[in-house]
């Protein structure tokens, strides 16, 4: 069972998420309302995954993510924010977070994102592909090969390297090689950042979600 912590300054949301995520079968081992308490909690509770709000009263959830990943490299961080700001998104992805979820989404979407990240995948809220698409970005000549685009598309949908390998009938090592090449080509810092850049450049597109007006 995935052990997770919730770090959000909104008390009702924090305590509500503790109950809702527990009811969904996750092992919520603690919650904190600020950066300092979050660091302390994760040092002691040693969760698999941290759900982190970006705006915290004593600092940024993005800075907290950087600190957490330095101290706990195996920790999966999902940033959970009400801000659909492109610059904040880039900074968040640069921090090493494996998931980026908007509070505009439903609880089911949040659960799906947590599950994908806990299973070793990554997740970027589908609403952000529109935000990231810009005329400047889409004017770029695509740099990725069809196979690389296919793999990044599957990765953006939350599939792990193992699942992608099975789906397109190549070895997991081949998938990882393609992903490394994409990260290098796009000058990304990690695979989630690469997905964000590929979306921004229009090289991959996600299907619209039900209820996504």
């Amino acid at each position, binding site marked *: 069972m995935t052990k997770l912590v919730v770090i959000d300054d909104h008390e009702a*949301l924090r305590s*509500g998420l503790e109950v*809702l995520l527990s009811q969904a079968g996750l092992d919520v081992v603690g919650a904190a309302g600020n950066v300092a308490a979050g660091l302390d909690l994760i040092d002691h509770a040693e969760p698999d995954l941290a759900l982190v709000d970006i705006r915290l009263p004593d600092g940024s959830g993005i800075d907290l993510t950087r600190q957490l990943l330095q101290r706990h490299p195996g920790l999966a961080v999902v940033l959970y924010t*009400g801000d659909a700001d492109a610059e904040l998104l880039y900074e968040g992805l640069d921090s090493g977070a494996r998931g980026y979820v908007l509070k505009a989404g*439903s609880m089911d979407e949040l659960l799906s994102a947590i599950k994908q990240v806990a299973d070793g995948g990554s997740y970027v809220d589908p609403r952000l592909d529109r935000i990231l698409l810009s005329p400047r970005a889409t004017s770029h000549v695509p740099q990725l090969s069809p196979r690389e685009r296919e793999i990044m598309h599957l990765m953006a949908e939350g599939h792990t390297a193992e699942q992608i390998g099975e789906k397109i009938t190549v070895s997991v090592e081949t998938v990882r090689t393609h992903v490394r090449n994409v990260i290098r080509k796009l000058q990304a810092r990690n695979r989630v950042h690469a997905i964000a850049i590929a979306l921004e450049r229009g090289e991959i597109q996600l299907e619209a979600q039900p209820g996504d007006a």
Partner: protein
Amino acid sequence: MPDAPDADARLAKLVHDLRSPLTVAEGFAQLLARDEGTLTAEQRTEFASRVASAMADMRALLDAAR
């Protein structure tokens, strides 16, 4: 009367602030709606109270923004 940028900023903050209680209310309402008899009476009461409390938070936010 506030100028347009102020009004836009206030509206953006209101929308942002409403998301947290909305998420709580939606989540607990879904839990109650999907329950197939596994929740205890105490849990049902607690979850309904959380929906009501979140709705009260939303009302307070909207009233404060008038």
